[in-house]
């Protein structure tokens, strides 16, 4: 990735997270570098969302260290933690939009809380952000319950980007979307990543998005990262799960296209 000399944006070392008598993540280590799109894959229940939620501080860990922007979140005071949290945005799997606020108010919410902006500016900037994720102002006054799945994801994306974060965490951004909408959303992520210079940490099951936009893929199995590298490395990997995932019946289609148009 070339940027390995630079300090990683997120650095996870020897992370152990468990519930009751089971360790879901078992001495896991992972780096995310500035400006890359990292795709995290793994079987259902392998702990992908647990890893994401632990990094953003929603779940407690048993041991290990997590450094974001070079700072260990356990060793900072509340004010620094809040300042760090403003530098990342999170897109939750089901959007997690505030159901009693309109689309526009959802996007404005972080700006209104953190940035003391005048009302007209909040309206204009939020409308611009909605346009950037492909939504029109006509939808701005809808409530989350009136949105389709794809629109919910777009609004959640706009809200995650409200404060111009440096890192965005995406939890299955394309799940539940039809292939065309998923493809559109993938290219939206790629475009935003390029224009805003984002670092993207993305959990996905979508082989197409892994292939199309991820710079690097990390595979989570048995509580560890078992494979880590670009898609070509995944196709060459001998780990049984990785093999069946990328070279199974569904993966083969991709491998085909990958060989025809080497990235």
């Amino acid at each position, binding site marked *: 990735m070339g940027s390995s000399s630079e300090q990683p944006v997120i650095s996870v070392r020897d992370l152990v997270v468990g519930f009751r008598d089971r360790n879901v993540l078992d001495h896991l280590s992972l780096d995310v570098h500035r400006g890359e799109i990292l795709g995290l894959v793994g079987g259902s229940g392998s702990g992908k969302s647990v890893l994401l939620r632990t990094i953003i501080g929603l779940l407690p860990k048993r041991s290990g260290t997590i450094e974001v922007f070079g700072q260990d979140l356990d060793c900072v005071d509340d004010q620094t933690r809040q300042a760090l949290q403003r530098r990342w945005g999170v897109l939750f799997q089901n959007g997690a939009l505030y*159901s*009693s606020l*309109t689309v*526009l108010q959802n996007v404005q919410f972080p*700006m209104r809380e*953190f*940035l*003391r*902006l*005048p009302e007209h*500016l909040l309206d*204009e*900037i939020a*409308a*611009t*952000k*909605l*346009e*950037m994720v492909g939504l*029109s*102002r*006509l939808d*701005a*006054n809808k*409530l*989350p*319950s*009136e949105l389709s799945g794809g629109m919910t994801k777009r609004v959640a994306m706009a809200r995650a*980007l409200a*404060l*111009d974060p440096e890192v965005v965490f995406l939890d299955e951004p394309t799940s539940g979307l039809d292939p065309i909408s998923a493809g559109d959303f993938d290219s939206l992520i790629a*475009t935003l990543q*390029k*224009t*805003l*210079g984002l670092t993207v940490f993305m959990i996905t099951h979508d082989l197409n998005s892994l292939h199309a936009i991820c710079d690097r893929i990390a595979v989570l199995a048995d509580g560890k990262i078992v494979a880590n590298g670009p898609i070509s490395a995944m196709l060459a990997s001998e780990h049984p799960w990785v093999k069946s995932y990328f070279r199974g019946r569904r993966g083969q289609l991709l491998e085909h296209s990958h060989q025809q148009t080497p990235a």
Partner: protein
Amino acid sequence: MGKWDGYRVNSDLSESSLLTTVVHPSTTTIVGSENWTAPNSARLDRLVSSLLSASERPVHTTIDMSGVQAFDTFGAWQLARLERALNAPGHEVTIVGLPQHYTDLFRAVQEASERASRTKSKPRQEFTGPAAVGESVAKSATGFLLLLNMVGAVCAAALRSLRRPSTFRLTSMVNQLDRVAWQAIPIILLITFLIGSIIAQQGFFHFRKFGADDYVVDMVGILVLREIGVLIVAIMVAGRSGSSYTAELGSMKMREEIDALRTMGFDPVDVLILPRILALVIGLPILTFIGSMSALYGGELVAWFYGGMSPEIYIARLKEAISITHFKVGMIKAPFMAFVIGIVACTEGLKVGGSAESLGLRTTASVVTSIFLVIVLDGLFAVFFASIGM
């Protein structure tokens, strides 16, 4: 600033170096510096607004961005705003010195804000003034129709179950009966005991003044059996079980569980609502009976320790004072009140929309409406029993 041989204007802008205007005979230059990012955006907005509020717009403007160290969508939006405002017909704006890696961001924001400014948002339909009054009248009318609809649906479901008893959800009803009646017994016992004691204490305190101690038993007996027993229990059940019915059905509606039932060919009224309402209709009279006894017992204890009336005398007085009619009047009302509470709670539960807020609103509405209707019903029963001489 050495390379500009003009002079600075806009002294009010000197508080900040984010934006400086330099006027030159042929062209006006706006120089940006520092961080054009989210934390500075409020300051930047003030500067841009005051710059644009000037009555005369320069013909040639150059915006020099080479001094800007950091730039994000907030800064890009302000730059796009400046450019759009100054770029009127007959005017000319050039942006120079914007670092290469920010131009993509600027173009994207410029396009998006352009699109955003072209479309007007559709305001949510909200009524004000007389229209709001009309809306609320129409709403309460539909609310009443929905209640009637629920009554009809529950009666139809009950008839269906009568015709084919095997389809009735007995397990579900027993489970609900456990929750609304059995588990409610301790709190009902406690509350009605206290109410009975308080009535007796107040009776002794005031009746003693004119030597009417004996009539306290009449008052406690009649009041508890006819009115207070059933009313207190119904209000408790509306708060305790009515609210939980609304919240349960409401969150099931939000999570599409009710739609799932429908698509599998089940009628939610059969599966969810009929067992719940029947449980209330069976449970509330039982609770009323238990509650009334507890209140009479509370009255007895107060009579004994506070009024100095032995339990034997209390019971003897009670036998004289009350008749089976008083007991019947109270008990007859109980299932009707239970039905009203159940109907209101289930109707409100199914009215829940997509938001968490509406769940809270509906639960409140359920408790308030059912308590109100219980009291109205009690009044109607009072008139009815008086006219038939009970």
